[in-house]
């Protein structure tokens, strides 16, 4: 049986080893060198890149921007996505149309949407966003050209899309809750907000933990919205970690070694986050088991 399994697995493992595991290991090595994208010569520099990363004020800014971006996207997206899923789950007439509309943002091409949002947040007084704020008497804002609004606007675009993803996952989680649970609650007189708080949300807790981790990891790796909307500007006010990594490794002096170190540090943080989520998920289940 062994050789048959090996033959079946071989094509997949060629792809995984050559394009995922191998490169990941190479990245670990390159992160310890001063390799540039152009030119074959490079030297082992040990932990110099790591030390440089901790002393790099631009990277520090990028980390802060990424955290702000996460805060502005993840929390509203999870709350809104959950609320919409709860509301949409009980829709009977027009069910598929409601779902189709709310699924659209996540399936849309993010670059195309970023272009449309760039237009909505155009600096001219006739732009859609400026027209809306003009209704309450606010002077036109240069949304993407102002250091104080650029990052929040980019986060809004990311959050718009993320809400749709959260909605899909919560909707799948809600449909997995059997009707009989609700019927039992109804017999006990548990309805409305009490039912939401004591039955639906606890049953969704594993989904919530998974979503929190998954969505945060996705958001930390934000690249497209920044690349299209602001290119990290103005004055680097919206540079996120991955966009900074791209700037370091693939523009300017093409410092691949340093870029790899940034990616590696980000991976370490991501794995820590995932492990934290796994621990939290297990503890949640244990607490609930103990309570029962």
């Amino acid at each position, binding site marked *: 049986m062994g050789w048959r399994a090996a033959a079946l697995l071989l094509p997949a493992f060629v*792809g995984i080893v050559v394009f*995922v595991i191998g490169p990941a290991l190479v990245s670990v090595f390159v992160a310890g060198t001063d390799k540039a994208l152009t030119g074959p010569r490079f030297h082992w520099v040990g932990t110099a890149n790591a030390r440089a990363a901790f002393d790099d004020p631009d990277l520090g800014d990028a980390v802060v921007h990424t955290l702000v971006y996460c805060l502005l996207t993840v929390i509203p997206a999870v709350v809104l996505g959950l609320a919409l899923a709860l509301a949409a789950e009980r829709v009977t007439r027009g069910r598929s149309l409601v779902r189709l509309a709310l699924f659209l943002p996540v399936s849309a091409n993010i670059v195309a949407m970023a272009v449309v949002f760039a237009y909505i947040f155009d600096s001219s007084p006739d732009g859609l966003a400026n027209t809306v704020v003009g209704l309450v008497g606010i002077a036109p804002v240069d949304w993407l050209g102002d250091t104080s609004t650029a990052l929040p606007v980019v986060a809004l675009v990311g959050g718009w899309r993320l809400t749709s993803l959260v909605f899909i996952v919560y909707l799948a989680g809600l449909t997995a809750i059997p009707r009989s649970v609700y019927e039992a609650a109804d017999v006990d007189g548990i309805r409305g907000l009490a039912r939401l708080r004591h039955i639906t949300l*606890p049953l969704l807790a594993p989904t919530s933990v998974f979503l929190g981790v998954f969505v945060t990891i996705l958001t930390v790796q934000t690249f497209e919205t920044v690349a299209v909307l602001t290119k990290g500007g103005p004055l680097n006010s919206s540079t996120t970690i991955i966009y900074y990594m791209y700037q370091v490794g693939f523009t300017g002096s093409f410092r691949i070694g340093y870029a790899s170190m940034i990616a590696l540090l980000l991976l370490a943080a991501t794995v820590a986050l995932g492990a934290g989520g796994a621990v939290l998920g297990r503890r949640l289940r244990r607490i609930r088991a103990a309570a029962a």
Partner: protein
Amino acid sequence: MSAGTDAARPDAARAPRGGAGTRRRHAARPERGPGAGRRRLPAPGTLARWALLAVGIAAALLPFVWMLRTALGPPQTALSLNSNPLPSEVHLDSFRRAWQDADLGSALVTGVGVSLAILALQLATAIPAAYAFACLRFRGRAAAFGMVLATLLVPSQITAVPNYVTISALGLADTRIGLVLPFMTQAGMIFMLRQYMTTIPASVLDAARIDGLGTWRTLRSIVVPLAAPAIATVSVFSFLLSYNEYLWPLLVARSPGIATPPLALARLLTDSSSIIPDFAELAAAALVISLPSLAVFVIAQRRLATGIAGTGAGA
């Protein structure tokens, strides 16, 4: 989805019944009179629900409506809420200019072609692997499967740099093959297909063996037809992901001839940002490049909603 929720279901369902539930019995229905029917939903709740949905749907659709509105409007004119929300006359001019300036025809062919090639490779590598993990017993199965799962943790940004070096060394930078090759295996697809294939009853596989079907015949004529719904679901996901991919084409496709649709659009935006951007042209280009993924999505929408719950991607 199912694994996590299933594990938590029994205890969580029990807790409120004995504990908080009884305490809350009266507090739970503050606004309804004692005569209100148990099955009838409270009107304020229903209203709030529909209001929330209406706002959510409006927010979800607004950029699409605005894209369409702008693309059909007159060129180089800023539009605002003050102007008529319906264009007085339809201009198709922007589409013609976008098609020429961004070379959208070539971009669409490249984008769809590359995405389909990636899909074919991913299915060709994932289906046999998923079958081996789900239906065969062999030494090292757990370790090999663990290795597949571990690759899900590696972000594409980590592998982008070394992959670029590999692809360049093979002389494939700036080629369509270079756009396809790094995505030849998708660990997530192996995982989802394997989850689905484990639900195939052992008796079916036993019957196939007794009938003298070998490993390959079983895979081809039993497992693949049975797993068709899951294969369709992962195919849609794969197509959407590949078609919308931005970072890798940005690194590899340097010459305009092989730009993928997102890349062509981003370049159109960059080229136009020095002068006053022609948003009608940009919106038209955005609309055109969105069409393939939207079409695939609308066609497959029903399947996706159920497919996510079925393949275990949820949790």
